[in-house]
């Protein structure tokens, strides 16, 4: 099978690239081993949240010019990064997800323990606030679910109280939830979200109203809306309240919602999404990648003019660490690291960890290198790139989306 572009890795970066290319008339395939890291995300995507000193950034685009040259954003440039960010929000909208927020100015979302973090785009049900204190929520109640352990009303209430917002705390249950609770492993966020439709959702809404009759805003765990936003909208309609959802420990319902919506939209645009497959070999023709084999499709089965590597960082196995080396497992392309393994890590997990900056070596067009030579048609996007501490600066999702958009536009223009 021949494609214009083959994308390896089906997370946020791979899907943004795939959708953009499909929309612009290319024929593409995404090969992905598993689900992307969105499954583990907070429901909020950050573009650039903190400066080098850890202080919150209000206007992320204004900071891009001050980033080091190795940073993926520096290779894109501030003006284009802004365009891409705007285009990503519009792409989510077309995929059926109305995201809150804008690239011009960061907003805040409340974390599972009741703190506020600066961010770029949040799912429509997220607990967002223009300032880091929950102002504008009015009378607020925190409503947990009996026997559901991934929601921490005590932490949330205490931290909100420190910001001057006193909340009532309550817990609810419904017959459907009671049934689910008989099995411990079902009593997790996606397990609940799977049953939260129709009558079960209506009963859930009634229980919320009964638990917090006087509240204008109700904070619940994110356990509704695995399958798009319609159940969230229904819940708000049924309760007549501003129901906001706090992301939970994985699997994150808000993350799955984003992943599913993007994947469906990609397929609707005619893309081929090969889930559960992985690339086993690549064939070069001079300085260009010509064809690949995959585990499921076998030898010489896939050819393309261009390839995009969007396999993520260590967590997604885009990079692999062994005691004496760090490598890129699909094509063995060059990786930029520092020192030996005693230099990779710092003693305190909250310190800036050097390994987070590691990534594949690329030229200014995001083309990867192997043995020092640029591969002319193999591009890297997303968190396999390195060159920045995405955790400390809060840029993981932004780098994924913006670099994917940049490379996809270049390829579509060709």
């Amino acid at each position, binding site marked *: 099978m021949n494609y214009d572009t083959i994308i390896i890795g089906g997370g946020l970066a791979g899907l943004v690239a795939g959708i953009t290319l499909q929309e612009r008339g290319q024929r593409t395939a995404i090969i992905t081993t598993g689900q992307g890291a969105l499954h583990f995300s907070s429901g909020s995507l950050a573009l650039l949240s903190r400066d080098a000193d850890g202080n919150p950034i209000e206007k992320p685009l204004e900071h891009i010019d001050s980033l080091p040259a190795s940073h993926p954003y520096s290779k894109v440039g501030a003006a284009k990064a802004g365009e891409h960010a705007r285009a990503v929000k519009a792409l989510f909208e077309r995929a059926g997800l109305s995201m809150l927020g804008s690239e011009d100015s960061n907003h805040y979302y409340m974390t599972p323990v009741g703190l*506020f973090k600066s961010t770029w785009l949040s799912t429509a049900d997220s607990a967002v606030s223009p300032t880091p204190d929950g102002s504008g929520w009015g009378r607020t109640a925190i409503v947990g679910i009996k026997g559901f352990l991934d929601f921490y009303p005590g932490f949330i209430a*205490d931290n909100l109280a420190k910001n001057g917002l006193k909340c009532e705390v309550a817990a609810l249950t419904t017959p459907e939830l009671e049934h689910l609770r008989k099995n411990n492993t079902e009593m997790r966020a996606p397990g609940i979200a799977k049953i939260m439709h129709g009558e079960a959702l209506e009963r859930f809404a009634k229980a919320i109203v009964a638990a917090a009759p006087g509240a204008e805003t109700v904070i619940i765990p994110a356990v509704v809306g695995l399958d798009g936003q319609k159940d969230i909208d229904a819940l708000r309609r049924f309760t007549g309240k501003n129901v906001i959802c706090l992301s939970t420990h994985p699997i994150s319902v808000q993350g799955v919602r984003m992943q599913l919506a993007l994947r469906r939209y990609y397929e609707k645009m005619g893309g081929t999404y090969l889930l559960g497959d992985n690339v086993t070999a690549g064939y070069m023709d001079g300085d260009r990648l010509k064809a690949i084999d995959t585990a499921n499709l076998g030898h010489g089965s896939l050819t393309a003019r261009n390839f995009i590597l969007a396999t993520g960082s260590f967590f997604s196995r885009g990079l692999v660490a062994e005691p004496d080396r760090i490598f890129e497992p699909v094509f063995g392309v060059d990786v930029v690291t520092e020192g030996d393994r005693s230099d990779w890590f710092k003693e305190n*997990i909250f310190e800036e960890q050097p390994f987070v900056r590691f990534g594949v070596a690329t030229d200014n067009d995001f083309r990867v290198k192997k043995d020092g030579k640029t591969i002319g048609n193999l591009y890297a996007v997303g968190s396999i790139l390195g060159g920045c501490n995405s955790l400390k600066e809060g840029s993981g999702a932004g780098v994924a989306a913006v670099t994917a958009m940049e490379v996809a536009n270049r390829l579509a223009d060709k």
Partner: protein
Amino acid sequence: MTDHIKPPKRYDVVVIGAGATGAGTARDCAMRGLKVLLVERLDFTAGATGRNHGLLHSGARYAVTDGESATECIKENMILRRIAAHCVEETGGLFVTLPEDSLDYQKTFVESCLRAGINAEVIDPAEALRLEPAVNPDIIGAVKVPDGAVDPFRLTTANALAARQNGADILTYHEVVDFIRSGNRICGVVLRDHHTGELTRVECDIVVNAAGIWGQRIVEMAGAKINMFPAKGALLIFGHRVNNVVINRCRKPADADILVPGDTISLIGTTSSRIPYDQIDNMTVTPEEVDVLLREGIKIAPSLAYTRILRAYAGVRPLIASDDDPSGRSISRGIVCLDHAVRDGIEGFVTISGGKLMTYRLMAEWAADMVCKKLGIEGKKCMTAEIPLPGSDSSDSKEAHSRKHHIIDMSTDQRAAEGRHGSLSSEIPTGDVDDALVCECEAVSVGEVNFAIDKLHVNNLINLRRRTRMGMGTCQGGLCACRAAAILGDRLNCQQKALYDLASFVNERWKGMKPVAWGQTLVEAQFTSWLYEGMCGLDRYQNNEQGNKQ
């Protein structure tokens, strides 16, 4: 859940240090009718007790080099199987000869074992491979010995519970900062509460120093001197149970020659290196130590080469120089029980040290014998070898036995809890919300967490991990720590303290992962960072000093 004592209170004996030896000494003294206070500057098992192989030595390891220790070991081995059944796993052990080692050693080894009373049986290597498929198939010799696995956390907790059942009081996070003296007599201790900073004076007739390697400082505080020689031993924990039988390498004791299964994991160890005394609180594992452990471990069990390593840790053996040789060339590996009245002219002060986890009960017996002798108490026989520990008691185990007959009625989580707490598991609340699962890797329920908070001296997540295994599994706390912290925050009624504690727990887990952070372990570490720093913003709670002030 620390016992509240109202000062000034008088005790017969104050025991310093809640490792196995200190808890065992408190139990022994309390069972002999003495009024005991056990004090610990941190948590139970925070020292060497919680940082070893968890090997129920048959004594075979020592048979060639130290016959006396070997004999003590096999006797205590048989006693622990009786009195601490819920802490012991009767796995059996093998001493295998690798192609690179000489078979000549096997003969000396077996003779020495038999002399020490250890049942060592030479078996065919093929039979060894059948008994333990994880062993290197190239072995040229094998000997079967009665090794086993022992859980030092449970063992110490059980001793502490037994002490309390016999009237002892226990204070964790209380450090002895001074002695109360009257002339040349020690007649009490001054304690500092680590949480509040408050000082308390406690009077007593005798102080027993069971502080392990930290005991040198206690002796110095009393005005005498002993020479301890800290020997660091590093170990690796593997992500699943690679072997079901203890595998030893049949050669002169050396680095990384024992692979022990314990609960859900396997452990390879140890290295042995002398460290300066001022480094005893700084137990980081070096890359060289990791490399040695892995290289030698793979020789014993080849599958370790591709088994995930959960974490690395190190402990300090408290070796003591013989009194007649303060240079340290002659080190006693056996039990050292010092009456400082005889040795240094200090009345009311006893030090129990040396020895090993396996002989903790015997050490406690010696210390309690000395206490009784000094107090002039006669006719109080040591009963610790006869009476089972809480969790292994016969009256309750009948119920446990009958429950086993209906094992199909028990959930996996209840069975896991019974494995951990023995007959005490009947006290764990079940039903309704108590059945919800906090830690999926180790099957720890809300009920078990509440039981640990109520009954087992739990103030923080590290305490909880030591009592229940919460956070010890493959996710290393990634998923369960936040759930447990939320329960602790509610129960201890201090949310901010629980959040500081959570950040410090996540960091403590990382410290053990860092030396082996590659492959899946690095994946897990990055995941944990995303969750706790990226998603939750917990980096704002990383300064634990503030946490302690809260």
